[in-house]
């Protein structure tokens, strides 16, 4: 087995007295999709923020290519090839596609004695990169990002990450706000990124989407890793149960059943509470 591209060992994170993450260990390989599953508040966001350099872990070890790394800032993480794409993708809705694609890394050309922003090249590259990901509707890099659909914005953000040589792509709930068709397209783009040898960390609470693209799954429950399995090792029902905290769900169901039996399915009147 080769060294994983990104390895987390015993990551803990607490904010003051509150433990948010407890002893998280994960491995992500090149050309693999790791699905990070978990309910709201399970610690997914905190884990992403640690990976993308926003927070520092309280303790634990992060390695890339077997070498220990520490990210002081988001910039630091992206210099290490970690790109994070958030739910709403393009964050500059009123900028043109070309400008938004190259924010902070604008291509320039000489114009007489001056160095100017190369709008034509920026637009061309942005449009071409989006085409590579199957977004064919866009042929004008001067269009505003705000005019793109949710899926297209995701594609733009992913295309940007791929273009700038990301080796780890973190996708934070990329399909959560999308319709069925758009979500399917984004999943296809995820697979394309994977084929390019990028390690993808796919955060979602949609088990179907996760099973479609994932090679490797980790379930977070209240800040701890509750399960870690590979594709095909668990059924969809088992994963859903796990995410919802299985036993609790069963308890709730039993309670509802008991309740229905005693009240003929009606709500209790005041004072009648068992």
């Amino acid at each position: 087995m080769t060294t994983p591209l990104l390895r987390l060992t015993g990551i803990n994170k607490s904010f003051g007295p509150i433990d948010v993450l407890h002893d998280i260990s994960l491995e992500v390989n090149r050309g693999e999709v790791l699905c990070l599953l978990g309910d709201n508040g399970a610690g997914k966001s905190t884990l992403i923020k640690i990976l993308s350099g926003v927070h520092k872990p309280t303790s634990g070890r992060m390695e890339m290519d077997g070498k220990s790394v520490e990210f002081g800032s988001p910039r630091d993480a992206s210099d290490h090839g970690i790109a994070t794409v958030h739910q709403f993708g393009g964050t500059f809705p009123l900028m043109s596609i070309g400008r938004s694609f190259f924010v902070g890394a604008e291509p320039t050309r000489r114009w007489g004695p001056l160095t100017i922003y190369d709008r034509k090249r920026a637009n061309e590259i942005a449009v071409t990169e989006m085409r590579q990901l199957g977004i064919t509707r866009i042929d004008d890099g001067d269009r505003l990002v705000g005019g793109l659909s949710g899926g297209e914005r995701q594609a733009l953000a992913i295309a940007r990450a791929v273009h700038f040589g990301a080796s780890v792509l973190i996708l934070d709930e990329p399909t959560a706000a999308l319709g069925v068709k758009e979500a399917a397209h984004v999943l296809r783009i995820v697979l394309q990124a994977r084929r390019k040898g990028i390690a993808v960390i796919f955060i979602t609470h949609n088990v179907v989407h996760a099973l479609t693209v994932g090679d490797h799954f980790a379930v977070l429950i209240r800040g701890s890793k509750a399960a870690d399995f590979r594709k095909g090792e668990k059924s969809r029902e088992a994963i859903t149960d796990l995410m919802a905290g299985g036993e609790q769900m069963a308890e709730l169901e039993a309670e509802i059943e008991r309740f229905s039996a005693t009240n003929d399915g009606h709500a209790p009147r005041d004072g009648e509470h068992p």
Partner: protein
Amino acid sequence: MTSQAHDQPAVVATAPPAPHSSMPSIGSLVRRPEVGSLIGMIAVLVFFSIFGGANFMSAGGSASWLNVASELGIIALPVGLLMIAGHLDLSVGSMIPASSMTIAIISGHYDLPIIVGILAALSLGLAVGFISGVLVIRTKVPSFVVTLATLFALAGLTLGLSIILSGSTSVALKSGPVAKLVFGDYLGGKFQVTLFWWIAIVLIVGFILNFSRFGNWILAMGGDAVSARNAGIPTDRVTIALFMSSGLCAAFVGMSQAILYNSAQVAAGQSFIFNSIIAVVIGGVLLTGGYGSVVGIVLGTLTFAIVNQGIFYTGFDANWASLIIGVLLLAAVLMNNTFRTMALTYSPRAKPRARS
């Protein structure tokens, strides 16, 4: 279904992007953010040409609003850049008299060479802008509040120091012919030389916003400051530079006014605070940042100046000018919103879809 989706080859369109047509279509024109401000400016121009009579469009009449526009425009441009970057600068209102008094006291009261006064006034603008910028990035207090503070602090400082140094709130300034010609003269007896400075600054700011990387950073910062910083933009440096440029331009206007009128007053320039914001907003800049254009700011400035001066050429009572500006501002903002929405929802003509 899982394995199936896995092996499915993704359809990749590799066709090159369609060549851009060189002729701008009506659609692409409507998508320009400036269209709203252009319509507004033409409307007020037509209105005052009709009601203002022949005088309004004569050389003298045009000069009266172009002169107002040039002084306002020199300040509105950097203020507009700041607004695109998501900030406000109210301190320009005190910067103008502060810079006027600086040059008048140094070169008028103390009789030092005019160049010393000019440099001191401009340096003061840079310094105040630097302080505002540093305060904004260090304290994270909204720039509205920070520059409101610097507005009052600077006004107090100007008044206090003027009294201590010159014993008066109004100081006379005699500048030589060269300084007069360059900064404060009327060409043909009518047009202020600041007009040429305005044109120069329009070109510089236009270049910065449209053709430099710095311009892209300004737009990105106004769109989302956190993402902009994460993308590697030196947001602190950009913020300070923008505040320094608005301080410099306000100081320039104050300095040139002192040379033009041969004197400086402590209480001048407060009208520029709101007037610059109005001009910028009429010009289609989004108050919350992230959107705007230099052409729009220029059009907004002209619109404001036309209304401000045009009223005197009509038979109406000049007291109504503010009412018109108020209504105009609201109408312009609503129109700009409409055009911005059109720009956002625009989608290219339907094409045969490459994939099902």
